């Protein structure tokens, strides 16, 4: 396995910013959530790479925690998507501006 750490980081960075761009550009709530998933996975790649670099198990363990947290987050956010869709029949993120000051 002759890969420099910097390449792993570059891949994970590219993926992270793709997810980021998705979150910023898309207006569909589901697509925004998908962007978040992409970002989380990019972080996971970094963690695994770092775990291998330093020869520590902890990085991989944190990926597990990350997955567990992600499942919690996704279940809640998808429930809210269902709720919002039921309430206003749309998934347009800009339609929900109740926090406008």
């Amino acid at each position, binding site marked *: 396995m002759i890969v420099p750490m910097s390449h792993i980081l570059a891949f994970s960075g590219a993926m992270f910013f793709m997810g980021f761009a998705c979150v910023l550009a898309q207006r569909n709530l589901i697509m925004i959530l998908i962007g978040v998933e992409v970002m989380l996975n990019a972080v996971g790649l970094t963690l695994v790479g770092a775990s291998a670099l330093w020869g520590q198990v902890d990085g991989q363990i944190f990926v597990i925690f990350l997955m567990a947290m992600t499942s919690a987050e996704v279940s809640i956010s998808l429930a809210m998507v269902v709720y919002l869709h039921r309430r206003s029949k749309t998934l347009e993120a800009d339609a*929900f501006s109740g926090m406008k000051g």
Partner: protein
Amino acid sequence: MNPNLLFIIPLLPLAAAVVNAVAGQFLPRRLSEGIAVGAVGFSTIATLLLWPLVDAEGVRAELYTWIASGDLRIPVEIVFDPLSASMTLMVVFVSTLIHLYAVGYMREERDYARFFALLNLFVFAMLTIVLADNLLLLFLGWEGVGFCSYALIGYWYREKKNADAGRKAFLVTRTGDVFLGIALLWLFSLTGTLSITGINQAAFDFGSGTLLLLTLLLLAGACGKSAQLPLMTWLPDAMAGPTPVSALIHAATMVTAGVYLLARLFPLVSLSSTGMAVIAAIGAASALYAASCAVAQREIKKVLAYSTMSQVGFMFLAIGVGAVGAAMFHLFTHAFFKALLFMGAGCAIHLTGENDIFRMGGLGRRAPLVFWTFLAGALCLAGAPLTSGFFSKDAILLATFAGGGVFQRILWGVAAATALLTVFYTFRLVYLVFAGSPRAAGEAHRLPGVMRWTLPPLAVLALAGGLLNLPVAWGGSGVLNSFLGRFAGREIHASHALEWGLAGLATLLFVLGWLLARLRYRPFPEERISPARDFLLRGWEADRLVSAVIVRPFTSLARILWQRGDRKGIDGFLEGTGHLLMAMGEGLRRATTGRLHSYLGGFAWGLIALLGWMLLRYAF
């Protein structure tokens, strides 16, 4: 007789004041009036009954210790000596008559309870001044009369003018009181006591500079209360009050409190010859100033107010030349005839519904009783031979002339000129009000009997008041002077020839003034408008002077502090902070669009900043 009975004299009016203040509005009108008049009347009777208590050294009675704190011990103690006894008798007697008069005068007022409560309270406070053997107690009464004066001047407070006049009187006299208060504190720090007797005894040990300053401080206090130069502007305005108030407070009693204070502390005051000279000069100057103003006044009560100021100036002059006996003599006679004049003026106002003497006229035939009694008072004021005013004023002129120095001669000249002016304005008043044909346009009232019948006793007293202190040269024995004993001030050494000469001169002045007034005012003259007349009418522009020298700089300073300091500085800073925070909040409010993407955008920019900063840190 138990000296403690003396407390009945001041406490009766106080009790009546309390009753009237608390329950006056619920009592029948007659009862309320009866309580007020009765209390003062019984005070008079009590004074007469307790008269035998007087002895030359004074009888003391202590009620209780008011303040005891360390070295300071202030007993509520009154002293009944010839000076205070005679003053007390005058105060309660005149008060009784004026109370009676007020019953008639205030017949149509609804707010009689407040009036009588304040009037009684005033009598109590005045008696406190007179009887107090302690300067702090005296000061209590001093402030008490000031308050009552304020409240009674502004009795018809619904009109702003009257309330303003009350405030003015209060503030101006308060200016004098500050000096008196300083004098009190200083005296206490010097002697460790505030007892008048103690202070008078301790005064011999003071340095001359201290004595002079103390005298000037006391004089300033006296000037404020007695409307002498330069604290005199309040008295003409004080005529906004009801006429009985003017008669009682601003003619007979309160304005003479300054004279009484100086007479009480005469042993101290007399030790400073410079101070005495200042007192005499202030008295003479006030007398001349006020007499000149009185010549031009149009309102009947203002003429009398200025004349009061002028006569009190005579008393100050007498104190200043050491003739306390003459001062007190003039104080008493003045109290009688000035109260009489004010009451007569009240009747005239009542009868014509006018204040302006140029619109009165012809009252002599309509109300002979008022005319004759007023004339009696006017003769006394003018100093017609053999009336009380003649003797008392003469005593002052004599004492001044007998002083001997050039300074005294100048003062005498001023006083003689004032006497001439006095005669002139008095007869001007009499001719304009009572002679000629009626010119009044106002609504005339019927005169209540009680108002009319209080005049004759005073008239008799005024005319015959000279007997109180008939000089030896006239075959009398100087009763008041010998009664006052050690309080009478310095002995006057003058030959009978000088006395007769001065009396002749006074008679001459009287005749001269009378003739001038008769010539000018007997046929009703059209009023001439001239700058000089306006100048005198407005009291030598004293009000304008005060406002230019004191009020306006103070106002502009206050405005600067208010607008620059407070509004722009403090408020500006605080409001500016508030506005800044509000603007910031407004900006932030606009940042919270409620849209997900703007938040995420912010997040992105933050990330860029963070990464950029880390890059920079790596690079350099």
